[in-house]
C-alpha cells in the first residue's frame, strides 16, 4: 500500500512551491483587485522558506514535521492567507502526531482536520468566497476517494478537480471576510485569490503523484 512519509511531504511542498512561483504575478493581480496585492509575494516566500527548512531538517515524525512547517510558514508569511495556512498545517500536525508514515486514509483525515482548524479560526464557511471554497470540496473528495481505496495519484487528481470547481464558483460570490469584504458588492465577478491558492496547493500535490 502506498504511504506518505517525510520524503513525500518534501516532494509535495517542492511541487506546490513551483506552482506558487509560476503563478506569483497572477496571484498578485487577483489579490490587488479586491485586496492589497501581496498574496503572490507572501505565498512564494512562505513555500520557498518552508522548502528550505524541509531540505535541512532531520525529522521523521510527521506531527513534528508539520509543526515545523506551520511555524516556518507563519514566520515567512504572516499575512492573512499565510497565517490561515499555518493554522491548517498545525491542524494536520495534531492528527499525525507520533507517526512516521500515513496511508491515504490517514492523510485525508489529517487534511480534513487542517481544513476544519482553518474554518474554525478563520470563521468562514463554504460559499463565503475564501480559500475554504476550494479546500472544502477538495477535502470531501479526498475522504470519499480514500474510503474507496483509490490510488494516491487518482485521489489527488480528483481533489485538484474539486478545488478547481470550487474556485470557479467563487467568481459569483460576494466577499464577507478579510480586506475583500470592504469592497462588498464590487467583489462579485472576480475570482477569489485565496481560493486560487487552495487550488494551486492541490494541483501541486497532484503533479507530485503524477510524476
Amino acid at each position, binding site marked *: 500500500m502506498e504511504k506518505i512519509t517525510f520524503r513525500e511531504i518534501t516532494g509535495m511542498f517542492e511541487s506546490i512551491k513551483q506552482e506558487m512561483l509560476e503563478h506569483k504575478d497572477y496571484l498578485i493581480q487577483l489579490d*490587488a483587485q479586491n485586496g*492589497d*496585492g*501581496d498574496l503572490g509575494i507572501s505565498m512564494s516566500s512562505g513555500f520557498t522558506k518552508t522548502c528550505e527548512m524541509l531540505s535541512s531538517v532531520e525529522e521523521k515524525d510527521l506531527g513534528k514535521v508539520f509543526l515545523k512547517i506551520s*511555524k516556518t510558514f*507563519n*514566520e515567512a508569511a*504572516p*499575512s*492573512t492567507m499565510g*497565517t*490561515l495556512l*499555518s*493554522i491548517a498545517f*498545525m491542524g494536520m500536525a495534531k492528527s499525525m502526531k507520533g507517526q512516521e508514515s500515513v496511508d491515504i486514509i490517514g492523510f485525508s483525515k489529517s487534511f480534513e482536520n487542517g481544513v476544519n482548524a482553518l474554518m474554525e*479560526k*478563520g470563521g468562514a464557511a463554504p460559499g463565503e468566497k475564501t480559500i475554504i471554497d476550494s479546500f472544502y470540496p477538495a477535502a470531501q473528495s479526498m475522504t470519499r476517494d480514500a474510503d474507496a481505496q483509490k490510488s494516491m495519484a487518482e485521489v489527488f487528481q480528483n481533489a485538484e478537480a474539486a478545488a478547481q470547481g470550487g474556485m470557479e464558483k467563487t467568481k459569483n460570490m460576494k466577499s464577507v*471576510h*478579510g*480586506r475583500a*469584504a*470592504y*469592497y462588498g458588492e464590487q467583489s462579485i465577478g472576480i475570482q477569489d485569490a485565496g481560493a486560487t491558492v487552495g487550488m494551486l496547493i492541490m494541483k501541486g500535490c497532484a503533479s507530485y503523484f503524477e510524476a
Partner: protein
Amino acid sequence: MKKIINNPESFVDETMAGIHYAYGDRITFLNGDNRILIKNTPTPEGKVGIVTAGGSGHLPVFLGYVGQGMIDGCAVGNVFASPSASKMASMIEACDYGSGVLCLYGNYGGDNLNFDMATEEVEFSDIKTATIRVKDDVASSPKESAGKRRGVAGMVYAFKIAGAAAENMLDLEGVTRVTEKALQNIRTMGVALTPCIVPEVGKPTFTIEEDQMEIGMGIHGEPGIHTGKLKTADEIVDIMMEIIMGDIELSEGDEVSIMVNGLGATPLEEQLICYRRIHEILDAKGISSYMPHIGEFATSMEMSGVSITLFKLDDELKELLSQPASTPFYTNHNK
C-alpha cells in the same frame, strides 16, 4: 515616490535602528530581534502586561506607545502587514510579570489570526492571556455589525487606559473590564485627502482625485463611505461628527476627550481648525472637553487627512486618562 529612504526593503529595519539609537535607554529589542520592542525600564512583579502588535507605517502607532503607564511590548510587522505569531508569542512571554497579559490590538484579519495562534502557543507555558480587539472606526461597518469594525486612532486611548489600570495593579480581569468599558465609549472617524505609498510597492495603492476627499477611508486606504469634492473644514467636521454622534450616546453635562489626529501630512494648523469646530459643536450641546489630544497619534506615512475620536469619560476613565504616562513618542504630561 518622494520619500527620504534608502531602499524600500530596509525601511522597517532602518526605522527600528533609529528608534534603538534614540531611545535605547527606555525601550529595547527582545533578544536583539528588531521586530519585538519591549520596555527597558523596571516593571513591578505582578503587574498585568499589556501588549500589542501590527504592521509598520503608522508611527507612533503601534510601538510608540511602549513605555511607562502605557504598553509593555509591541511586535512589529512589515509595512501594513502583521508580524508572525511566534514573534507575538515571544513578546507575550517577555511581558508576563506573573499576572497574565492583555493582548490589545486593532481588529484586522492578519493580526487577529496571529494573535490567536500566539495566545494558544503561550498557554503551553501557562501564561494567562486576555484579548481585546479595538474596533473604534465607525465608518468601517454599520452599527449592526460593529464587531467587524477596524481599529484606528482610538486605540491610543485604549492603551492609555489599560496601561494606567495595569499600573494600578488591577488584575487581568480588572484591566480587561475597564479597557472594554473605555472602548465602548470610544468612536473614531477619518477623512483622507491624499493616498500613501507602501515603500516596497513604490506607488500609491489607491488614488484620490485632485479635488476630491474620501470620508471614512481606512488607514491602509480601505474604501470610505463617501467620496466627493473637497469641502470646507467645517463641513467635513460636521459630516464626521454627525456620524460619530449618531453612534454613541452623548448628552448635556457629559465630558469627552477629543482626539484630532493628523494622518501624516496634514499641518497642525488644519488640525486645530478642525478642533475648533468640534469644540463648538460639543459646546453647543453642553458637552465639555477634557485633555484634548491634537497631533499625530496614528498615521499612514504621507497620507493627508485627519481623524476625529471622541472618548466619553466617567470618573474612573477620567482618572485613568489623567494618570501620568510617558513613552518616547507619547506623554500626557503636557496635555
